């Protein structure tokens, strides 16, 4: 468990912090995820894809749960205008060895996001990193709900198209 922690904690904490906005809360989220992983190691299977994406899904889910528990329906944003995840600094100090591929994975996903049309990337980021539902996004952007839904569908399908050849998705 220590080695798993050393390998993945920085990505987990970074995602939790991005979502909940408070270091103490992010710390608690990560603790609960790793504790759950320890108590139920059989909860992961290779059918669920790469371990790191599954682990980060747990972090995302727990972060959103924590925000709901504290009666916050939206992730706190620094400004009214959402900051693209691509404007944040990727890991500046990739560690070799076990961390080699994690840094490359981050690069691949960020590159895939960059290649999405702006309107598709925006709705995906608002939903995943902002915690907004499709109807909330439509209201926030002043766009029809159907348009938002279509852009999210196309965005995820385009992402899949880019990630699949990189071997990041399992059958």
């Amino acid at each position, binding site marked *: 468990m220590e080695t798993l922690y050393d390998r993945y904690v920085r*990505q987990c904490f970074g995602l939790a912090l991005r979502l909940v906005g408070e270091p103490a809360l992010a710390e608690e989220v990560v603790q609960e995820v790793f504790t759950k992983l320890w108590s139920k190691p059989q909860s992961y299977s*290779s059918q669920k894809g790469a371990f790191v994406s599954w682990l980060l899904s747990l972090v995302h889910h727990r972060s959103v749960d924590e925000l709901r528990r504290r009666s916050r329906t939206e992730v706190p944003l620094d400004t009214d205008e959402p900051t693209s995840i691509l404007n944040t600094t990727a890991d500046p100090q990739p560690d070799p060895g076990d961390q080699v591929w994690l840094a490359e994975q981050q690069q691949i996903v960020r590159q895939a996001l960059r290649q999405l049309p702006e309107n598709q990337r925006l709705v995906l980021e608002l939903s*995943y990193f902002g915690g907004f539902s499709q109807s909330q996004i439509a209201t926030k952007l002043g766009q029809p709900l159907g348009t938002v839904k279509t852009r999210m569908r196309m965005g995820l399908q385009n992402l899949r198209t880019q990630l699949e050849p*990189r071997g990041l998705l399992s059958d």
Partner: protein
Amino acid sequence: MNEPHWEQLEDDWEDHLIEYSMDVMHPADAEEFRRQLSECHVHVKLADQYMQVVGWLGTAAASVEPPAGHKSRLMSRIASTTQEQATATAAGGPLSAALPPVTPITFMPQLHPEAAAPPQVENAETLPYNVTSLGEARRRKGLSRNVALLSSVAAAVVILLGAAWLYSLLSKPYIPAGWNTLALQPRNGALQNSAVVLLMNNDRNDAVLVAGNLDPLPTGEVYELWFMPQTGVANPAPVAAVAFVPNAGGAAKENVKAPSNLSAYSAVAVTVEHSFVNAPTTKPVLVGQNTAP
């Protein structure tokens, strides 16, 4: 009947799946959606693919070092947390293939007929344990002890296998299909503590150099990566790839585009140069043999 593909999903269901995957669905609706999903194996497979894509979005967030003491607090918490027993029949779990199949209790075969039918109780109101005789009660008590012993052994096996499974996740880093790793070894007495790996994709002629614990260089000097052609080629000269300088922590990461088919190079090498040059001027400090097919 062909399984529906992504493009054939009904839009409404797909919209629900998106919200479910993004964790923005109301918890009660999410619970209902999850229940419906569990009843349709075709959609479960497609949902898994969808959620994998969403799962990767998390890697786009910047990595951040947690506060000091976080690890020790977690380890203390884990030390007081028990591991759940995995059922041997759990489908798809990492332990399901490793655990032996459940077999009936055979060391007390005389119990099997009774286990198949409820015990015949003469007077259930006066027999609090619903047994036909004291002998039956003793047999059931013995069975309880054996079941408890078996459960303890199974729990120990599960814990050991769980640890082995966790270790297996760590024994190799996750390397997607199409990529090979090439570890560079120190040469000529230099960089003994370095850890340098070249990730190569022969299909795309892409490579990524990731290095750690590199010695700092004098101002103006650089490390340079070379591709070494195989013997017998018309031009055997090393091919310059990329020059790089480690950061203050001795780490470096560079994307590399190979000049031609990666499989044409038998080795890679790193030298120290005064600047990016087209021919090496010093002996290599790191060398790696390309054994990829």
